[in-house]
């Protein structure tokens, strides 16, 4: 396969990605070609690398996200590009973000389970917004009374937040396990009951692991 041929595949891939305005998978890109001219997967992968470096020094870049490849404006130019749009970028409420976080990290999860952790009811609007944005979807129903829907995040969610997989989410902070909490509490309660300021031999900060 000569260079000219590769360059042509690269230009077609670039054209398709700019026409789609959304991510395309490697196979979707390959299927743009008729069978007799369809590049092998490895060739297509190589072409994507070529395209990536061809975008250096340009206003846009090739980004790999969950559902494939996307051409997007380089983040460093967002301040200028943002001036094109009169409307402020949308802000999301804490309630929505917390619900989304729970679905992302704890999927599949029911609304009731989300409410248990958040300690408040989750409004239907939040669930509807998340479903409409196609950030979450129903993946089944839990086999308990009422058969509540179980929610999970979608590829579109990952795409939107520039992630190629759930493992790219920021790590969840650690939690000290319950038994240890129990011991700690007992110790502290004991101290409180005995009504004396403890000589704190081991400060609490170090107990994290």
């Amino acid at each position, binding site marked *: 396969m000569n260079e000219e041929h590769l360059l042509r595949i690269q230009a077609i891939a670039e054209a398709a990605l700019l026409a789609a305005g959304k991510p395309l998978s490697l196979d979707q890109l390959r299927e743009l070609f008729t069978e007799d001219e369809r590049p092998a997967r490895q060739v297509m992968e190589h072409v994507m690398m070529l395209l990536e470096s061809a975008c250096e020094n340009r206003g846009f870049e090739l980004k790999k996200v969950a559902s494939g490849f996307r051409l997007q404006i380089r*983040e460093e130019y967002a301040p200028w590009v943002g001036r094109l749009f009169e409307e402020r970028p949308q802000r999301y409420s804490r309630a929505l973000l917390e619900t989304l976080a729970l679905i992302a990290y704890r999927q599949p999860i029911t609304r009731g389970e989300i409410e248990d952790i958040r300690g408040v009811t989750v409004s239907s609007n939040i669930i509807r917004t998340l479903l409409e944005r196609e950030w979450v979807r129903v993946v089944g129903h839990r086999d308990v009374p009422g058969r509540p829907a179980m929610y999970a995040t979608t590829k579109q969610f990952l795409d939107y937040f520039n992630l190629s997989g759930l493992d790219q989410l920021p790590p969840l902070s650690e939690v000290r396990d*319950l038994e240890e909490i129990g011991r700690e509490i007992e110790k502290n309660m004991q101290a409180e009951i005995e009504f004396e300021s403890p000589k704190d031999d081991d400060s*609490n900060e170090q107990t994290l692991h």
Partner: protein
Amino acid sequence: MDDSEATPVADEEETPEQSPLARVSGKPFVDLPKDLYIPPDALAVFLEAFEGPLDLLLYLIRRQNMDILNVDVSEITRQYMDYIGAVEAMRFELAAEYLVMAATLAEIKSRMLLPRQESEDDDEVDPRAELIRRLQQYERFKKAAEDIDELPRLERDNFSASAALPKMPSSQPHPDVDLREMLLALQGVLQRADLFTSHHVEREKLSTRERMSAILSVLRDDHFVTFESLFTPEEGKLGVVVSFLATLELVKEQLIEVVQAEVLGPIHVRARAAS
């Protein structure tokens, strides 16, 4: 987030015995936070400021620089009750969850006052441990939500790149829509929004709203046009009335401004915020 540095100075107004109000990592604190007073209008946003009782508790705990594991239940309970009492006194509707939490706190507090019974069933969950577990769990996801909000995202930090299509061999087919489908969708919104009780939507005839759009698009540049030019006499009396009603509505919605430089002079109209 807070400016309530609890200073280790005694406060006479508090409990007669000088027991510490709070222990922060073992160090006793004996005075009250000064910012407990909430101005009435701040109360109005109180319920929106917190994402529920766990969030409020976390706030109270953090405000005192307490560690979750080291929570002084008595003090936190007292502050929590103060907030709840203030909200209730203002007759704001309080979500039931807040009251459930109040009961839980009260229970924990009362248990702590009782001497510990060694014989107590080991299987029973210590309510304080359970509360701490929940607080920790909630805090993790509160943090996770903040992390997600920080991620670079489309339409804010990233924009997808797209280019115009050239002349294409065949035009892109659009989905078909049945008018009834759209009306059914509208019915759904109306039921949700309970708009039937609001006259706002029904007040103007649709022909008026259509004319409002038409007038606005005539006024798109920043120029004044004469009032008369908004009317098309060929449309007859009814058409003129529709245009007139549309103009009035646009004035009322503050979408256009009408100017007359002198008495009986020509009237000019322009969009208040032309594109």
